[in-house]
């Protein structure tokens, strides 16, 4: 495999990893605060739809992005009310949210655009366009570094860079700020937070809210950056892969990046069976590549490769009075 092909593959991996990364970090905030979230998928889907719909209507992708975040936040609020306020089952709430998004996006899209549950194609300012980083063109012909900079690092949409910045930011928030300390505490032992005079409900809603914002960006990325418009079920299981990546990453920010890049690479490879064939000399079933993230997650969960220990209070509603 020559350098250019490799770069093209990695480039594709970065693009495909971005929504996974955003959703994965979204899940990290929520689950670190003790709220399990299998509704990442649904939130992404809702955001994808509303961002595309609004971007199309207004012609401005940034307004679209805000709308997408809004849609995702709305579902987050439902999840919060169900699992924090009413202390319901977080898993069931997540399942419900995924269905709600799958159904509502199509129902609304159909009644809004009458195009079989999709939005019209976005063009121009209604979608995120690739950004050429400074000097990319100038450096292009420098051997090795040039192509790497030009092909791999430059030329992505703004949201890709946003996602990449969010990783160190999250790490910093989690481990260097008051909010991060409290967030981690509330996922480990909410009673400790409560008796220390900090509102468990407030913290958990904040976490769920951040999760909503990030899922919103992830969804908007799908519909307005990776693609130019919304199509039915376009999240296509990415929320679950992000969840898998979160477990794979043991609920830590940097590993989230590596895990989602790995899963993004697997997806990119699944698109290039010819590359595998050429490099390895034998062909790998695309179905196997599709299933690999899930299989890896099961292996991790089974504890054969380092045990993944979730936050201790995860999934349990905080109940003071029976």
């Amino acid at each position, binding site marked *: 495999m020559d350098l*250019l*092909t490799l770069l*093209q593959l990695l*480039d*594709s991996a970065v*693009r*495909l990893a971005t929504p996974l990364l955003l959703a994965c970090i979204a899940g990290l905030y929520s689950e670190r605060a003790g709220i399990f979230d299998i509704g990442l998928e649904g939130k992404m889907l809702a955001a994808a739809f509303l961002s595309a719909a609004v971007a199309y209507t207004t012609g401005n992708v940034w307004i679209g992005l805000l709308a997408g975040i809004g849609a995702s936040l709305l579902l987050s609020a439902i999840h919060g009310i169900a699992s924090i306020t009413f202390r319901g089952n977080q898993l069931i709430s997540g399942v419900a949210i995924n269905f709600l998004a799958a159904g509502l996006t199509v129902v609304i899209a159909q009644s809004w655009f*009458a*195009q*079989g*549950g*999709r939005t019209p*194609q976005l063009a121009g300012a209604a979608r995120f*366009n*690739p950004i050429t980083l400074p000097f990319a063109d100038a450096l292009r012909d420098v051997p090795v570094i040039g192509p790497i900079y030009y092909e791999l690092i430059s030329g992505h949409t703004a949201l890709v860079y946003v996602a990449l910045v969010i990783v160190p930011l999250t790490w910093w928030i989690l481990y260097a700020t008051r909010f991060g300390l409290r967030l981690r505490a509330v996922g480990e032992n909410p009673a400790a937070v409560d008796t220390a005079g900090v509102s468990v409900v407030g913290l958990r809603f904040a976490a769920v809210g951040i999760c909503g914002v990030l899922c919103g960006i992830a969804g908007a990325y*799908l519909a307005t950056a*990776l*693609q*130019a*418009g919304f*199509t*039915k079920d*376009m999240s*296509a299981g990415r929320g679950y892969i992000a969840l898998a990546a979160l477990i794979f990453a043991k609920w830590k920010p940097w590993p989230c990046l590596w895990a989602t890049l790995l899963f993004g690479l697997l997806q*990119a490879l699944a*698109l*290039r069976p*010819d590359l595998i064939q050429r490099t390895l000399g034998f062909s790998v079933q*695309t*179905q196997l590549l599709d299933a690999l993230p899930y299989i890896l997650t099961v292996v991790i969960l089974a504890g054969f490769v380092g045990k993944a220990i979730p936050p201790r209070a995860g999934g349990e509603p905080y109940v003071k009075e029976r």
Partner: protein
Amino acid sequence: DPAIIFDLGGKFDKSFNESAFNGATKWAEETGGKFAEVELQSDAQREQALRRFAESGMNPIVMAGFSFATPLQDLAGDYPDTKFVIIDAVVDAPNVQSIVFNEEQGSYLVGMLAAMASKTGTVSFVGGMDIPLIRKFACGYAEGAKAANPDIKVIANMTGTTPAAWNDPVKGTELTLAQKSQGSDVVFQAAGGTGVGVLQAAADNDMLGIGVDANQNYMHPGQVLTSMLKRVDNAVYDAFKAGTDVKPGIESLGVAQDGVGYAMDDNNKDLVTADMQAKVEEAKAGIADGSITVHDYMSDESCPALTF
């Protein structure tokens, strides 16, 4: 009244189903008649929709897509008084008309255009689901390209092996980018909703796209070289018009019957030179009169111009 059932992509897929929908609409506008329609959401609905329309007296019932072959085979006999029209597949029953197109011929023509428009000497193809029908497109395309430029390199990729491959624009985009990195500068897609992503990626990355089924030149004016027309609209229109007098049997539509072709309009007039158009017209006449034969992949499941 006539009825039409669209396949999973939905009637606004900008290609196959939409073309069928346009034919039906044209009929309705011309005659003032009414027709029933349904867009399938899942495979399991096929039979239910067919039966429901047959039960409620719709006639003829047109279905767009080869996937209806199996259920239709089973239930055609239950409704001997109803006429069924199936597009893209052959069902042998006394009350069924099967319409098939010689897609390889249309693909041949756009393949020639692609080869002539390519500056890099490499053109490519993105198929939807990997089935013989789509290989037929690819094969004709490669043959046409090689006819126009024997040195041309043709890359072909399929999106997937399941019906989801018809509706995966993200994958379409990524495949197109991968092909670009291998040198392609003209890409032909026969991939339903996935093709939207292909054309988008082509437009975003200085490539020329080629549309399929319906005229898709308008989607990215100046960046879609042409479209391989498959006149599903005409087929539907004719079926609706014939009404209950639809003739059972197999109808095969090629260049000669104007069933397939390539699209020229304002959007691509600057991309196709008079010279290019002349050569294609010549080939078109040759195919119509039989002096040029285009290999049909489905006749022997092999392709002389391309290996998959």
